């Protein structure tokens, strides 16, 4: 491990000489052992993000196959069975194997450093959480090789990512495909809860001296809220997975409508998890925004306490909006009204946040570096996603467009235009910290331009095809309904997105060896992670830092005008 130019362990007695064979530094065996047995939050964080990106590429290829199938009417590039499995695996993987691990990776890497701690509160639990996710991810993908084998796409689940009952009952889902889905999600849920618990405990109990709750970086605050959402929202998912397993293996009647069970109850339980999950995925995007926008606007964040309040308010409201996924089920008008209004209410704190980010940029000396470009794109795209969300929260509108491509466009604007763009921003921002080298600006610009272009080309037309009545998840469609042009545009957009991702992946690999040396604080930022070396040593800080304001590095760089005078 390179610790940068100024190594901080000069004494010999700090260096542990390898005694056992295979533990010498630099050999493959050493690297593998290091990855397998590490409990270091930084390595686990990078492993989370790395595996998340691998799953991202796989699930992205599935999406590309779906778009290929839908590019022209009456196409038969892939068979209907394979198609059903692809959209199920694409959705499941993107949520549970890409979104969740990448946000946990960000939290793992950054939360302890930002609060001046040396590791997470429970390092071994942290490793446990990672390996639960990792193996359940490969377990889910293993379904392709199980059962009848690859010839007819194995036993991969084909029930959609929310697996509505009674499609999952033994009668309609033979074999073990649904069991792979259920068990993989149950196992990864255990890992997620473990990691979220770790984040909460780390944030509350391991803050360095002076790091009061009112001085914590907003990134950490947001992840505290996310972790609370995880521990409240994942257990309902685990509970309904347990019920489904009992139904499928022991003949229980939870979702068996023939025996008095209710298929609607599955929808309620799933969305009690499912909607907070959306906020679990998007709040980390906000977290990255909260750190990146101020640094590149050269101003402290506008309205820190309001931002904290907005986070908590979003999390609170998100626990009471789940049935807006179920307007078409036929609830009472009171139920429809309640969930419509509570859903619209989410727009208030979200609007506050967008307002505050713009307020941060207003009058600032904006540097249009790559992280900032992705953040600005996020502002526009997330605004579109929020507006279509408000449209869908109107129950009669939803009756028209539920399960149409309009919904697909809406949540892809949330998850790609919102989350993925901020993940890219975060990677461009913190890569220099993690690896000590800057990502190439030129390759990054290619990535940004191609991916943004491709993203809008793919998903903007889907609003229209949704309005024209195209349902989601259909295998193919007839010509002459007015959908052809929009679908062709969507599919062409994939090419640009894929090209953008290629530039991104190449950038990650290229800059690891050849990137410009970053130094400790390349962005002139203000939070504690920039106070240590790039990459940070195993123990993060030689001496635990002490802070007096929300921008400890500002105080350090500007002793004549420190922040704590004004806070």
């Amino acid at each position, binding site marked *: 491990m390179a610790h940068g130019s100024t190594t901080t362990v000069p004494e010999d007695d700090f260096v542990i000489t390898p005694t056992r064979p295979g533990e010498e530094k630099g050999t493959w065996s050493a690297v593998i052992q290091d990855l397998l047995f590490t409990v270091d939050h930084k390595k686990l964080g990078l492993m989370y993000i790395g595996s998340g990106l691998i799953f991202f590429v796989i699930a992205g290829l599935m999406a590309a196959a779906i778009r290929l199938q839908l590019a022209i009417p009456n196409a038969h590039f892939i068979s209907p069975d394979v198609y059903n499995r692809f959209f199920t695996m694409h959705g499941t993987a993107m949520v549970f194997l890409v979104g969740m691990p990448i946000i946990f990776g960000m939290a793992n890497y950054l939360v302890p450093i930002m609060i001046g701690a040396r590791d997470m509160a429970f390092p071994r639990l942290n490793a446990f959480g990672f390996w639960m996710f990792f193996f359940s991810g490969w377990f889910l993908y293993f379904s392709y090789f199980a059962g009848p084998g690859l010839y007819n796409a194995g036993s991969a689940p084909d029930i959609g990512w929310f697996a509505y009952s009674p499609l999952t009952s033994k009668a309609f889902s033979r074999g073990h495909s649904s069991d792979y889905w259920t068990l993989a999600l149950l196992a990864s849920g255990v890992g997620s809860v473990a990691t979220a618990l770790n984040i909460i405990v780390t944030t509350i109990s391991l803050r360095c001296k002076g790091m009061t709750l009112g001085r914590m970086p907003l990134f950490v605050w947001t992840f505290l809220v996310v972790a609370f959402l995880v*521990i409240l929202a994942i257990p309902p998912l685990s509970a309904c997975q347990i019920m489904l397993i009992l*139904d499928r293996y022991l003949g229980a009647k939870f979702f068996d409508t023939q025996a*008095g069970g209710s298929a609607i109850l599955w929808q309620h339980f799933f969305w009690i998890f499912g909607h907070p999950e959306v906020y679990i995925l998007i709040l980390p995007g906000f977290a990255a925004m909260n750190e990146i926008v101020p640094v590149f606007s050269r101003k402290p964040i506008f309205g820190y306490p309001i931002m904290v309040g907005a986070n908590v308010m979003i999390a609170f409201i998100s626990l009471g909006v789940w049935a807006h996924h179920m307007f078409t089920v036929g609830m009472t008008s009171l139920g429809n009204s309640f969930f419509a209004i509570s859903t619209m209410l989410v727009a208030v704190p979200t609007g506050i946040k967008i307002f505050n980010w713009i307020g941060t940029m207003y009058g600032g000396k904006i540097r249009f570096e790559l992280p900032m470009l992705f953040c600005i794109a996020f502002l526009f795209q997330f605004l579109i996603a929020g507006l279509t969300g408000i449209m869908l929260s109107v129950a009669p509108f939803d009756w028209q467009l539920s399960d149409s491509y309009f919904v697909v466009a809406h949540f892809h604007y949330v998850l790609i235009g919102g989350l993925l763009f901020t993940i890219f921003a975060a990677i461009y921002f913190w890569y220099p910290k993690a690896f000590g080298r800057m990502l190439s600006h030129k390759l990054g610009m290619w990535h940004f331009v191609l991916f943004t272009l491709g993203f809008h080309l793919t998903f903007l037309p889907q609003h229209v095809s949704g309005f024209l009545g195209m349902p989601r998840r259909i295998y193919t469609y007839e010509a002459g309904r007015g959908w052809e042009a929009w679908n062709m545009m969507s599919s062409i957009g994939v090419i640009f997105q894929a090209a953008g991702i290629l530039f991104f992946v190449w950038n990650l690999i290229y800059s690891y060896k050849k990137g410009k040396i970053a*130094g400790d604080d390349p962005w002139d930022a203000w939070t504690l992670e920039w106070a240590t070396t790039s990459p940070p040593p195993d123990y993060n*800080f030689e001496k635990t830092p002490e802070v007096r304001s929300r921008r400890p590095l500002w105080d350090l760089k500007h002793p004549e005008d420190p922040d704590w005078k004004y806070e």
Partner: protein
Amino acid sequence: MDQFINQPVPFAEEERPWRPPSFRKVGMLTLITTESALFAIFVVAYVFYIGKSLNGPYPHEILHIPWTASFALFGSSATITFAEMALKKGNRSLFQIWWAITIAMGAYFLGFTAFEWHEFIFKEGLTISTNIFGSTFYSLVGLHASHVIVGLLLLSIILISSLRGKLDHGHHEHVEMIAWYWHFVDAVWVVVLTVVYLISAHY
């Protein structure tokens, strides 16, 4: 940037003690919160399905309020507190006695559940697949019973460590956390007792 490397950030604030909350306590409270969310869904499923069974046996035919078992479980919350008080005073043998009583009462409760299930399965013919009552009953009571089992394992580890003299002052918070977990298991039984044995027994 060299001057910042690994330099502690200067801190001119007056020397107040900095004591963030104990990570064990926060961890246990978080665990209890997430477990509560898990139980909540099973309780909701149970309540939702009260009276929805299409065939017998029905709750009112077979459920009897488990007074002694409930008394044993609630009482064990008291005895574990007595054990903690003894530990705080440094009275190790008294601690071990109260702790062992707690384990005995928890084991009695678990034995009751085993006996009850045996009756239901072999005499009343109620299994998890008989009807919707069986599904919700066994899953909710079983989830609770599994927590009692975990609690008993944790309690036993403490007792064995204490008997072998491995427990010292550094472990006081460990003991307290296990007591918290045990109180949680008891509190869940308040809900299960109310919902299953008091409310649904009329249907």
